């Protein structure tokens, strides 16, 4: 594990069981400010559960999570968000009947209301969604909805962003846009943890990659090293449906 002076996010030995199934089995990782960590692994390896543990959707059975030095272990989702860690969901979850503009405003409604209009303008510009500001979120294409998800998260000026398969189902042009936006944001010091299946996307975006299988971390390192590792190859070929 790469040790960092003061990581934005540190998770230690997280464990979560659902009945007889141990979905996450002693996972530890950390991300430094401005770093982009990729999380890959076959379906069922525990990636989404890990996100849920870190973001407060589930409470871990064991382990800890620290955000900028402060513990957020076991806090409910809304408190984790208020502390500065925001996430997107695997299935696009915009506020369908609300306009893009209102989606962004709602994201700012707790703690970021002052100056929210200016911030919303700049977020729209960053994601090139300005022309859609008054459009209902449900009328956006899938890819645009993913961009909106990112936009909402950015309204809260988070120190850590968890992106759960944000590229899934997005066409290549919009995907590039997403990547651009993420890289631009990291310069502001934001850390990103990205779960993805598209390897090109991962390689282009991530500084480091962590591979999960069966709830554990198999290996961690830079993309090329990790991908060549025999265990990784086996777990993908062996398990992927």
């Amino acid at each position, binding site marked *: 594990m790469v040790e960092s002076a003061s990581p934005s996010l540190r998770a230690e030995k997280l464990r979560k069981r659902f009945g007889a199934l141990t979905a996450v089995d002693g996972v530890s990782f950390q991300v430094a400010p401005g770093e982009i960590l990729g999380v890959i692994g076959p379906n069922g390896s525990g990636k989404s559960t890990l996100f849920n543990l870190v*973001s407060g*959707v589930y409470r871990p059975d064991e382990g800890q999570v620290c955000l900028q030095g402060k513990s957020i272990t076991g806090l*409910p*989702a*809304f408190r984790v*968000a*208020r502390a500065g860690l*925001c*996430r997107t*969901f695997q*299935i*696009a*979850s*915009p*506020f*369908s*009947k*609300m*306009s893009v*503009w*209102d989606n962004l*405003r*709602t*994201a700012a*409604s*707790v*703690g970021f*209301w002052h100056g929210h*209009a*200016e911030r*919303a*303008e700049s977020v729209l510009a960053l994601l090139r969604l300005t022309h859609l*500001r*008054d*459009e*209902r979120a*449900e*009328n956006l*294409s*899938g*890819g645009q*909805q*993913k961009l909106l998800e990112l936009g*909402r*998260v950015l309204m*809260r000026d988070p120190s850590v962003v968890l992106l759960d398969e944000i590229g899934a*189902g997005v066409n290549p042009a919009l995907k590039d846009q997403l990547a651009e936006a993420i890289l631009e944001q990291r310069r502001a010091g934001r850390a990103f943890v990205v779960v993805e299946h598209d390897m090109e996307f991962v390689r282009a975006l991530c500084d480091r990659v962590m591979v999960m299988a069966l709830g554990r971390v198999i290996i961690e390192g830079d993309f090329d090293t990790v991908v060549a590792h025999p265990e990784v190859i086996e777990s993908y070929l062996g398990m992927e449906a």
Partner: protein
Amino acid sequence: MSAPAAAAGGAAGAGRYRQWLGLAALVVVIVLVPFVLQGFWLRIATGVLMWMGLAVSWNIIGGYTGYVSFGHGAFFGVGAYTVAILMSRFGVSFPLALVIGGVLGTLASAVVGPPTLRLQGAYFAIATWALAKAFEQMANVLGITGGPYGTSLPPLINDHFFYAVMAVLTVFTAVATFVLAERSRFGLQIKAIRENEASAAALGIHTTRVKIMAFAVSAFFPALFGGAYAYWVTFINPQSVLGDPITDQMIIMALLGGLGTFWGPFLGGALLYILKEVLWIYWSNGTAYLAIMGFVICLIVVFRPDGLISFFQRSNARQPGPQGGEG
């Protein structure tokens, strides 16, 4: 609102002023009615006002927040019985009794709200339903409420007075709802909860607290209306103020008009109440109204779930492109 936002509002900006204009027009009409209508028709107008107010209130929790309460009649009943008991047994004046009724109704919702609002959709519906029935049964068995035989209030026959009372309450409800649901952060938050509660929480919204507040606000006005209603009709019993018809009508009026829209419940409330009275006048029939209500609910849900108001709204859907994501 800061300048760039207001300017960039464009069509939305013009719409802002239109809403306030609409409200102002409503107030003007309400004020003028008693000069035009008398007696029986004035009483009809009074009823229309009350039901519009009830539908608008229910819409806060049912339409805007997406938590369909099948027991809201309980709050109406609490207000009604509070006023009835305070005025007839303790000689309390109407204004004071009314306010106390409102407070008690809200308190009831604050007690009942937290546990029930943790439940999702169907469970919440059943819980609120069970609760309202429990309230009705309690009114049936307790002595202070007069049991199944009901209780009466000091009589007052004054069409203009009661019209004025309902008018004030309805305007109050309308303005408060408009500000809270359409022009504030709170409104954005409750709508977000309806659309996707998990996302709302992931954006820092304390969903439980927001829901409880929405529930309380949605209970406060019906409690007031219930109190006013009791004084107006002079006699109440469990069936008339705590029974199914109260909640049923609140729901269908909001649904018919347009769930989660501001003007929908006004439309639904007025239409349905007038329909009920027409049926009563021309056919002496109260039960056919029930059947028709039920039928209308089914039709709306199947064919026009957005309600009648959607006929008046500029279509918000652009040409379907590649649609993605699950709603």
